[in-house]
């Protein structure tokens, strides 16, 4: 560790950079790459169709032909679990990073400019945070109706607030520092100070938070689908798959349990990456040039 | 220094103590072969810039260095002839507070904010001496009175945030004195306080020492503070003792250029009318120590010889030693 950390300062290219990755970052990245690859190449990895029903092959236990067994409609669970990577990971990604983009910009702007905009924004954020996250999203879905598109809207409407609050708090600290004051005395416009000087310094905490937010959003989307408020059937989705097996727990445990493992695996991969990033980004501060 | 203890074996004897801290990308030698002695009943002043290893030394004596970051490599810490470094943790706990006590730099953070002052002050009495709460309270109030805290009965149950820094330091000193230690380590006990309060606290420590006959190590970065109260002085630089001897000899006839530098840069010592000369340069990087004298880079007297080999502490006069190749060139 100590030797590698020192060697990393010398220009050593990709290899030196990889050496500086902590074990958790390395394992997490490898796991994540594997999951993404499995999602991308799903049609070539399995001979089955994720949607085709085959009542002759219903409720088969895990075996050589069906690694994860089949569900009550005779669909291959392994195939559906692979295709569900596309559903869950994609929804999880966008429901994390679109709100982050908007939230960080709004929060940083509020922290830099203060005034009425800041006051109004803070009231909105306080109100949103007064609700349990899931309850607010369910209420929004009750207004909009269920469906994949409305999940994006609902999570977006709630999700940006956390990032805005985080970025605002960081910006308040940053705004008092000399380099921001210097930029101000030089008469730079506020957006330039924000984007070029302050943003590189305040975005780290949001990036670190986004990794666990990513996990929570996957849990959220699968939870909504489990409750029947999310991704509509027959689209393969992990939470919905767990829900489908709920009534067969005793005779066919595999329907619910095995798709759940995929959620855990993905979540652990993301959490490990987040852990690794915390150590890498946490100690360092970028100077605003 | 009382003549009665002159020939007796020292109460505390530190021999060749080496302490290393593991840090990102290597290690730092915070203490490299420190040796010093404290005799029963005397006051030793330990001076040096911040980072010279004074606090590390105190913590090493009490074995309070952060684990596993700090490692005591070699050396001995003999207290009353027994090596503290070799004691089992249980025995060491009994030494802390009863035989050796410590007063820390910042009184505002030395007490937990959530417990009453009296409770923390008398905790040692209850733990080590097995006193009941009522008996401990009685003694605690007496201790508070002895350290000059007014209205101790009423203030016993106060919380630390209700008190001023000076008053808190009195409480911390009372806490250290609770079990009548034979050695008190005072680590910059006045640094965090106002100048007027500093004098009072130093006077209090001197009074308590005289009354109890305990030995004391007074750590300070300010040679003026040490000059007033100490029998002997040890000067530390970059993790080593560079000069040690009777206070009068070290202050009046320094035998190491660093001691001389400290004296010239301190307004506290009696040198009215003289210009203050700061020591040029920076302390060396402890992560990458040079083989020779650590002060060589900042020293006007240094020659090539100084940079090649370690310079040993050697006697210049009875009881007065310095680690310099040219002690006679001090003007």
């Amino acid at each position: 560790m100590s030797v590698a950390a020192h060697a990393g300062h010398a220009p050593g290219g990709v290899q030196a950079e990889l050496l500086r990755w902590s074990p958790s970052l390395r394992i997490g990245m490898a796991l994540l790459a594997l999951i993404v690859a499995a999602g991308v190449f799903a049609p070539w990895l399995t001979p089955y169709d994720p949607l085709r029903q085959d009542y002759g092959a219903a409720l088969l236990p895990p075996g050589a032909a069906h690694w994860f067994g089949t569900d009550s409609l005779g669909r291959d669970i392994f195939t559906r679990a692979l295709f569900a990577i596309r559903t869950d990971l994609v929804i999880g990604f966008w429901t994390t990073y679109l709100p982050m983009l908007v939230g960080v910009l709004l929060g940083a702007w509020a922290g830099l400019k203060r005034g009425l905009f800041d006051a109004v924004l803070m009231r909105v954020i306080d109100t949103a945070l007064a609700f349990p996250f899931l309850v607010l999203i369910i209420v929004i879905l009750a207004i909009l109706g269920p469906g994949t598109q409305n999940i994006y809207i609902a999570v977006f409407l709630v999700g940006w607030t956390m990032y805005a609050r985080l970025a605002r708090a960081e910006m308040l600290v940053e705004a008092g520092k000399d380099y921001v004051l210097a930029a101000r005395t030089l008469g730079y416009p506020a957006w330039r100070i924000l984007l070029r000087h302050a943003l590189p310094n305040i975005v780290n905490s949001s990036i670190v938070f986004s990794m666990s937010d990513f996990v929570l959003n996957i849990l959220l989307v699968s939870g909504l689908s489990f409750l029947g408020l999310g991704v509509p059937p027959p689209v393969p989705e992990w939470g919905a798959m767990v829900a489908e097996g709920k009534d067969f727990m005793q005779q066919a445990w595999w329907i619910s349990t095995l798709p759940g493992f995929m959620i855990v695996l993905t979540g652990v991969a993301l959490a490990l990456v987040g852990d690794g990033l915390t150590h890498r980004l946490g100690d360092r501060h970028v100077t605003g040039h | 220094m009382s003549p009665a203890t002159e020939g007796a074996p020292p109460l505390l004897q530190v021999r060749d103590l080496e302490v290393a801290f593991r840090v990102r990308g290597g290690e730092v030698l915070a203490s490299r072969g420190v040796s010093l002695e404290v005799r029963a009943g005397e006051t030793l002043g330990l001076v040096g810039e911040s980072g010279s290893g004074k606090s590390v030394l105190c913590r090493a004596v009490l074995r309070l260095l952060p684990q596993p970051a700090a490692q005591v490599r070699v050396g001995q810490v003999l207290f009353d002839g027994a090596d503290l470094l070799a004691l089992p943790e249980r025995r060491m706990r009994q030494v802390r507070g009863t035989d050796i006590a410590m007063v820390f730099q910042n009184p505002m953070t030395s007490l937990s904010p959530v417990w009453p002052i009296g409770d923390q002050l008398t905790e040692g009495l209850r733990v080590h001496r097995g006193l009941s709460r009522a008996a401990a309270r009685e003694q605690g109030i007496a201790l508070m009175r002895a350290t000059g805290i007014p209205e101790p009965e009423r203030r016993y149950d106060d919380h630390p945030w209700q008190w001023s820094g000076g008053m808190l330091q009195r409480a911390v000193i009372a806490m250290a004195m609770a079990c009548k230690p034979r050695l008190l380590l005072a680590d910059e006990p006045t640094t965090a306080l106002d100048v007027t309060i500093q004098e009072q606290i130093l006077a209090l420590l001197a009074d308590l020492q005289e009354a109890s006959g305990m030995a004391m190590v007074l750590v300070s970065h300010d040679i003026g503070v040490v000059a007033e109260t100490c029998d002997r002085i040890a000067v530390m630089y970059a993790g080593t003792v560079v000069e040690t001897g009777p206070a009068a000899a070290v202050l009046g006839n320094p035998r190491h250029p660093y001691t001389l530098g400290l004296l010239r840069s301190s307004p506290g010592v009696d040198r009215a009318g003289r210009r203050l000369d700061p020591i040029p340069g920076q302390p060396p990087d402890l992560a990458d120590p040079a083989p020779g004298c650590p002060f060589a880079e900042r020293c006007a007297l240094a020659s090539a010889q100084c940079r090649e080999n370690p310079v040993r502490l050697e006697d210049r006069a009875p009881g007065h030693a310095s680690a310099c190749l040219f002690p006679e060139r001090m003007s």
Partner: protein
Amino acid sequence: MWVLRFVASRLLQAVPVLLGVTLVAFLAIHLVPGDPVRIMLQGRASDAAVAEIHARLGMDKPLLVQYARFVGNALTGDLGTSIIQRAPVAAIVWERLVPSVFLLAYATLLSVLMAVPLAVWAAARRQRLADHLIRLSGTVAFAMPSFWIGLILILGFGLTLKWFPIAGFGKGFGGHVHHLFLPALTIALFLAPLLIQSLRAAMLDAMTAEHVEVARAKGLSESRVLFKYVLRAAAIPVITILAVNIGWLISGSVVVESVFSVAGLGMLLVHAVSTRDYPVIQGLTVVFALLVLGVNLLADLAHALIDRRVRP
């Protein structure tokens, strides 16, 4: 006496948020595309019946008047009427409140019981095997969806071992404790990792405080230092963490109530959404927010009890 002043000042500070909360609840019915009454009645009612319900709910009045009435009614404890269940929303919600609060308190207790010893252990053995294992299992537990843990607990402890019932609220305190054990454990398994992580960090932070070193210098045993000085100082961040995560805790309970068929607020919400019972959704929106704000107030109070400095 400070308690009353403390609570009063906090309530005053909460007024803008409460206005925002009622606004969101109010809009929950008015932002629905189309006519919410027709959606609720699913096209089975005549135009006259729809108009009659509109009038009864006051939906023929201007929006601002409706909002004022909504807030005014809510202040007197009237949360409207469910057309579908033909009952006052307040009564429906009240009936469901007890199981939910019981479950939340139970889950919090379980997670604290799990988290405190593990966090103390991890902090005391930091950067050693126990610490790494505890952190790793925390990462895994954090990634486990609660509905999935719930089903696995049902399969293991309910259906296979038959130690615990897998549904319902049970009768009497003992019955509640027995019936809600698995649901509470499910929530606790999701909450405990968060607690462990922050408690461990808070303890490591507290361990480096100077007063802890002073305590060690007094010759106190490591366990006394840990429990009297470190844990006490770390308790404040933990209470804050619990309060901050109350939203997540309730979110988790919504899902878990559905898994274990506990007739609480969460199950009511999911049911109300699927039957498009808008007045109940409205009422629940307010009640859930009040729960969150109430817990935060309690946490602030507890903080003031432990650390006298924050008292007014």
